[in-house]
């Protein structure tokens, strides 16, 4: 009698316990794991990394040291060579992307893998800003944004730089500030819908010195749409030769409508007598000014030989000043 009742009971209880035990032990509630695990150290290889948060990159304590080089960032060899030349590794590498080109995901990963950040100048040569603004380019924008999102490394994107000049098709000649703003916001919105939150949006006008009549405010998309103000301003043989006279007028105009951090997003000094002084003025100005978060040196021969190594004296000055601890830092890993 006992055997008859106790045995089946035991068998049932045992199997229930086994079944329940499997449940408890086998339980790997991913959300419970996520609530405990420190970021980045996902126990499962397949688990998706959290999206990169660019917030710490927006106001860094030190200054960005950027460079644009032929062949980079698809290959890092030019960057390594440049680093050897100037004695410091840049932490921002510029690149150019024409409207219609795919996103250079490999380049972005190369730069990030090397401790830096890719800076893309996205140049809408073709269909016109009105086409971008009205949504007819959305397929391309979404594809580009998805590519950016999947890369999951920080990327600075400057769309339609030097919009206040007349020399580009997206400039003052062929389009209006309202269309520029509309197109900018539309691209930004598509990126947000897609979820490409790893982008630092850089609004980059040219210095106003050559185009004083063009007001910048109408081109401003709004604080919610821009992370950095980029300023394109080269040190030429003639013209302004101090940090303040070259960038000051532009910055003062911009300061009227935003207090976003400023990056000298494209600069170099024309070879010549003044080049050494220009380098000293630039690096000194960036280092001294708290609102300026860095500069991107255009080291490509184009119209002029903008490469720093073409002037030994200037190069020596550059090496001396860039060695300052304020320039360059490793971009946070996550």
């Amino acid at each position, binding site marked *: 009698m006992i055997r008859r009742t106790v045995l089946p009971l035991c068998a049932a209880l045992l199997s229930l316990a086994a079944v329940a035990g499997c449940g408890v032990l086998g339980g790997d509630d991913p959300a419970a794991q996520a609530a405990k695990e420190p970021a980045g150290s996902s126990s499962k290889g397949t688990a998706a990394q*959290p999206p990169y948060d660019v917030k710490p990159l927006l106001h860094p304590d030190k200054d960005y040291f950027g460079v644009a080089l032929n062949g980079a960032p698809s290959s890092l060899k030019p960057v390594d060579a440049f680093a050897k030349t100037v004695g410091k590794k840049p932490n921002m590498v510029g690149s150019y992307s024409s409207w219609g080109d795919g996103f250079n995901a490999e380049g972005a990963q190369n730069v990030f893998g090397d401790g830096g950040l890719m800076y893309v100048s996205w140049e809408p040569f073709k269909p016109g800003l009105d086409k971008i603004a009205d949504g007819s380019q959305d397929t391309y924008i979404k594809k580009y944004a998805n590519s950016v999102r999947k890369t999951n490394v920080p990327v600075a994107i400057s769309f339609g730089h030097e919009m206040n000049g007349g020399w580009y098709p997206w400039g003052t000649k062929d389009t209006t500030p309202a269309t520029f703003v509309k197109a900018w916001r539309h691209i930004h919105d598509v990126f947000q819908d897609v979820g490409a939150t790893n982008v630092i949006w850089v609004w980059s006008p040219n210095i106003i010195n050559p185009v004083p009549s063009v007001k910048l405010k109408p081109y401003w998309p709004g604080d919610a749409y821009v992370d950095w103000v980029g300023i394109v301003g080269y040190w030429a043989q003639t013209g302004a030769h101090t940090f303040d006279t070259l960038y000051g007028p532009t910055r003062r105009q911009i300061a009227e409508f935003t207090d976003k951090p400023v990056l000298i997003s494209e600069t170099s000094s024309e070879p010549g007598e003044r080049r050494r002084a220009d380098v000293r003025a630039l690096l000194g100005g960036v280092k001294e000014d708290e609102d300026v978060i860095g500069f991107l040196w255009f080291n490509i021969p184009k119209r002029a030989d903008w490469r720093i190594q073409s002037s030994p004296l200037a190069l020596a000055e550059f090496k001396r000043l860039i060695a300052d601890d304020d320039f360059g830092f490793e971009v946070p890993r996550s």
Partner: protein
Amino acid sequence: MTTQQQDGGWSEPGQRQDWQQHYPPYTEQQQQQVYGDQQAYGQQQTYGDQQGYGYQQPYAGQPYIPQQPTAGQQHYARPYTGGSDAEYYVPEYAVLEPEPEPEPGYVLPEVPVSAWSVDNSRSAWISRGVLLLILLVQAGLSFRLDGSAFAQEAKFLTTDGELSGLVAQLGLDGARALSLAWALGATALLFGATRLLFNARAGLAAAAMYSVLESTAFTGRYASLHSLSLFLLAAALWLLARTRQSSPAAVLLAAPFAALAPFAAYSAALYLPTLTVLAVLTAYRFRGTGAFVRGALFAAVTGVLCFAGVQFAGTPSGWNVKGTDGAVELLKDSAQWGGVVLLVAVIGAVGFIRRARMGEMPWAEGSAPGAIRRSLLGLTMCGTALLAPLYQAWLGNGSSLYIHVGFGLLFAVPMAGLGVSRMMGAHFRYPQLGIMIYVAALVIGMAQTGGLYRPPDSAAMIGALREVVDTKGQYLTDDPEISAYYLRAQTKPGQWHQAERGAALTAEVKKGSYDAVVLRASSVPEALRGNANYRLLAVLRPSDKDGGQEPYRIWVKR
């Protein structure tokens, strides 16, 4: 041995059944000695005098000495033809008064005939083994389902009631495992109840049908009290069946279980009337009009207990919330979830109403329930399956209907078990039908559970929020329960607020009082588009792209 076998063997010698010829209880040995094969109808104890050949039972106290038959005797020893003119030698004999039957020391009570095979311990063990397999399949079907907590589960584990404090110690996995234990228990009790009401074969078929239901697998993997409530109902049903032969007062054992069930899950209240009717119907056969006393007792005590429960714990909420779901749509859904089982149950009920037994044991006629009671039982069991769908269709509230259908089906499933048993026919003539029904129910159940059991893929969201939240912030989110549960170490439940849409969301965002906003949305809502106060921190897509879930979007204060 059943009483029928004994009765048939002794009282109706002229109409003996084939099966008895194969198992002559004690005559074979004598026949071998005396008549060989030709005399296969021994046991002439009571009518031997009619035949007049002086044969006496060895146990009657007079030892029998074998002798060579004479020529006349040989001639006589031909198959018995029921008596004819004796053209043969009739030996001298003395008429002996038959020994009076001794009073039996023990009489077997009448046992309901359950199946063609005799219920012995071997068949009981086989049944238990099959039941164990069924339970393992059920557990497997539940474990198939996986994922993070549903909002309701998270709520159950954090803020609900006092009981949850106990359950919360187990965590989500523990609470789900507990649910599975209740669910397995309910299936086992269902088997027991059906076995008692009909037979073991119907019981196994019922357990098998119930174990593969969408609602069964779901509740078995759902950290809530639904599973406990089902267990309590099944326990009440089993106790009703178990006490069907006892005095009406024994039904009181079932009342506490029935009364507790609605306090675990309010939808169980719908089935208390069914249990009352079953209390009457299951007892009738054995207690006559006492059955109504039984029903009345059950109803009264359950009612009193429920009333006391309401006084003590308050009315369960949510049972009568009206909604805007389409009634036809809800009924269609219910048909998809429980239609197969209900159909089989109806077939079983019709078969049961037509014939009380399948006739595997033609000799085992006798006390079967009458046609009216069979009809009422069939109607009650099948009709109960419609209660939740009809009620919720009337309310227009489809909330958790995929779980609630399982409550009604719990009562229809015994009939479905009988239906499967009937369709397979006497002596398992068409087992393929039973297999087909089971496989169909299994596939349908698996597919439906896979579609319904889609907890939000919140892991990435939780991981991202963990970096954002602190003990002081206020957070607006589409999933406050889930966030509060998983981030209970970092935050308090009061910090999480339910997000709305449209103007309400715009107002909240404009006010800017929340430190983070988490929405499940396919695109950025207007309120947060180009917002200067909040920046989009992350957009987190579910890992299962076909899951139909919108990505989580997290905004944080700039």
